[in-house]
């Protein structure tokens, strides 16, 4: 961006106050929208099983590892990085508060992956190894994503 920084007029004191007031207004508007329920489908970015997932309600998620919960257990995912709707997004730095978002999921099935083949081969040296790897997998269904109007 070709802007000129030689003058100090970029962010003067009055500009700063205006932007702070604007920010407070925006926060209040968003809070009211959440309180009135004027949002459609919510999506969330959640950090789970050392991966980040972009999820909505009624989503299916498959993790490549085991979860110590039985099938049918309800789980709450706590590390939420971002929540968005059509008109607003709440970006966490880096996480959003637990009193702000609630993401619930149910464990649906625990299976094993298809047998993956690990093979090493060196030609002319009579060296080959074959290993079949089967990972345990867990399937979760995201039930709900809820937000509460407690922005400040």
């Amino acid at each position, binding site marked *: *961006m070709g802007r000129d920084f030689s003058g100090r007029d970029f962010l003067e004191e009055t500009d700063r106050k205006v932007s702070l007031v604007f920010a407070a207004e925006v926060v209040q508007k968003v809070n009211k929208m959440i309180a009135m329920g004027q949002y459609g489908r919510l999506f969330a970015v959640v950090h789970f099983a050392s991966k980040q997932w972009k999820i909505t309600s009624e989503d299916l998620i498959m993790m490549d590892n085991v979860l110590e919960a039985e099938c049918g257990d309800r789980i709450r995912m706590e590390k939420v990085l971002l929540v968005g709707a059509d008109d607003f*997004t709440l*970006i966490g730095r880096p*996480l959003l508060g637990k009193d702000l978002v609630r993401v619930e999921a149910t464990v649906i099935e625990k299976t094993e992956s298809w047998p993956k083949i*690990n093979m090493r081969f060196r030609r002319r040296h009579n060296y080959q190894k074959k290993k079949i790897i089967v990972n345990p997998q867990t399937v979760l269904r995201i039930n709900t994503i809820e937000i509460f109007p407690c922005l400040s």
Partner: protein
Amino acid sequence: MVLLSAPRWLRSRLTDRFWRVQEVLKYARHFRGRKNRCYSLAIRSVRRAFVKSTKARREKKRFLRALWITRIEAASLEHGLKYPSFISNLLKSQVELNRKMIADLAIYEPKTFKSLAALAQRRRQEGFLAALGDGKEPEGIFSRIVHHC
């Protein structure tokens, strides 16, 4: 009388050769040419295929990341930012979305990506002010570090 060693006409011969061969050929059925039918040709191709798939599993992570970076670069240039400044300013504002997520948001949630680009741009300007202003300007809003308990 008890015979202590087996007689010479008693041989142990392979009876399941068919299934052992089928185990290899089943992985070669979709190949082209004689290597989908003939065992000697198939065993070589199948071995190469397994080794290539093993190595590709490690490289997939590399080229997917390169793909995400390309997509994020394209999307951020649409909003007037280059990729290095976009990513570095997002990290400085303590937003820890990884590249897969940002690329997905750029495709499916354009408004959210626009707000992320605006955040990065604002943090960039505050960084310039802090560097050029030498302490006479007050600190930027988005440069404040949030501490969680």
